[in-house]
């Protein structure tokens, strides 16, 4: 089984003015994706502009393919959004390290900031009725799958920047409030998060101050997706200096291959 294949667009469904849910079907068997893994998706119909594939998280596995939830942001995602049912698309994947499966007895707290939900949804789905979900976005119309999420988790907490749904403000604050109320002993919690980097940095700090282990999914500009180009570097703490005689205490790891899921304590925020 190759991780390089072509898939057919079954549906490219608008969710609101700038988000879409892409459903792809594969004719030949492909590798089973795990929650947190991602795909490199060709958006240029074989042309050279844009040249590179785009990395998208697995949103949900289907019986004969998978789904990707994306925000239309730049040239690549605009082109993807113009692609129609029946078109064939080039895919590399599934790639990268998945979210570690939470041990039985531990309660996952899953945090999604905006389109970060695209990465954690399949994790929430894989552990029905076990997780508390914290979902923040700019406004009500950028929150998706709320009914499904409500049915999949033990508790769903919402925030929006404009206060149009849930608590007004950052989802990091909602998580803080939750932890301050101490529902369970803290060592039973485990945090999973995906969203903008500043939010992930806040969550890493919260996790650390409550001594909760946290896994975050990171994003970085990426060319190959398979660990060859070394483009998607992220700074992680290193106990030993790689460069002799220097005080450097970090090394670069690859988001595509060493991640995208990292232990938050490893990252130099």
């Amino acid at each position, binding site marked *: 089984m190759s991780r390089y294949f072509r898939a057919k667009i079954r549906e490219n469904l608008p969710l609101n003015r700038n988000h879409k849910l892409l459903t792809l079907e594969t004719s030949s068997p492909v590798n089973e994706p795990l929650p947190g893994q991602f795909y490199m998706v060709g958006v240029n119909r074989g042309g050279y502009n844009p040249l590179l594939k785009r990395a998208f998280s697995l949103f949900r596995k289907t019986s004969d393919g998978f789904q990707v939830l994306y925000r239309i942001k730049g040239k690549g995602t605009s082109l993807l959004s113009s692609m129609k049912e029946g078109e064939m698309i080039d895919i590399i994947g599934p790639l990268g390290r998945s979210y570690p499966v939470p041990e039985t007895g531990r309660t996952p707290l899953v945090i999604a900031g905006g389109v970060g939900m695209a990465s954690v949804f399949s994790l929430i789905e894989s552990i029905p009725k076990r997780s508390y979900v914290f979902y923040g976005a700019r406004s009500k119309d950028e929150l998706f799958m709320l009914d499904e999420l409500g049915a999949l988790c033990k508790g769903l907490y919402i925030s929006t920047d404009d206060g149009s749904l849930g608590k007004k403000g950052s989802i990091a604050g909602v998580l803080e409030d939750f932890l301050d109320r101490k529902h369970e002993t803290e060592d039973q919690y485990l945090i999973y998060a995906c969203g903008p980097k500043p939010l992930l940095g806040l969550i890493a700090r919260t996790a650390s101050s409550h001594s909760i282990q946290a896994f975050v999914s990171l994003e970085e*500009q990426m*060319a*190959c997706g398979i660990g060859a180009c070394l483009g998607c570097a*992220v700074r992680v703490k290193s106990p030993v200096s790689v*460069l002799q005689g220097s005080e450097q205490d970090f*090394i*670069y790891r690859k988001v595509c291959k060493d991640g995208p899921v990292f232990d938050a304590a490893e990252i130099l925020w």
Partner: protein
Amino acid sequence: MNLEVKIGGLKLRNPVMTASGTFGYGEEYSGFVDLNKLGAIVVKGISLKPMLGNPPPRISETPCGMLNAIGLQNVGLELFLKEKLPFLRKFDTRVIVNILGNSLKEYQQIAEALDDAGIDAIELNVSCPNVQKGGIMFGTDRKMLGQLITGVKNTVKNTVLITKLSPTVSDIKEFAKTAEDSGSDAISLINTIPGMSIDINTRRPRLKNITGGLSGPAIRPVAVRMVYEAYNAVKIPVIGMGGIMNADDAIEFFIAGASAIAVGTANFVNPEATTAILSGLIKYMERENIERIGSLTGSLDIE
């Protein structure tokens, strides 16, 4: 049909190679491509000591291309020999190691160790635009380039020596001749072309390093021209590269004067690009009744 080519004393099964820095240490692509099918694998540039590389963002897409400023991040000579080379040895292909240093002595130390390890060929990196020291200073000064090549050539016993030329010189022919006269067995070109891109909303450079090396189809016409000029200036084989995405692109380089070609940025877009290019090349040779790939080299018709 004969696809075999000779680079100095080194025989390659076919003329399709990988470009340094775009194929990792081979392992990264082994799940996509049968590495035994490649003419040669050119691995990511190796320095004497490990290098951290540049801070992110390290890459940025540009029209029909990309800028990179990886900063020669690599595991260093020792780890390469211990951890990366054994994997490559399992395959029936040639292994070419791209090397870089800050001084002639460093280049010699690496070359000697690789020669002892029985590496097929060394590609001298004298043209990386993304690090302050090393590399490019040798590539843009003919006297220094000549001394470097002679110095390394005298250090190695069996290893074939390829010099990777910088495109940022006023006359590529002169540098090609210097490489030939100094004992290089072959030349490879082009490395990336220095470039820059700015986010107009933040007025910040898109790369943390500010400038980077441009690669991809955007640079191909420049590369074809330089291969053509270099081919006409020297007798040693020319390895052509720069934006080769498919077999047609590769054939253009052969006609311009390349004896072999290297696939770079295309690997990022299509991890099977190397073998797809090889298949396309074979089809072209069948169609055009070309018995020997060597006869295509420099076959440009200017009448």
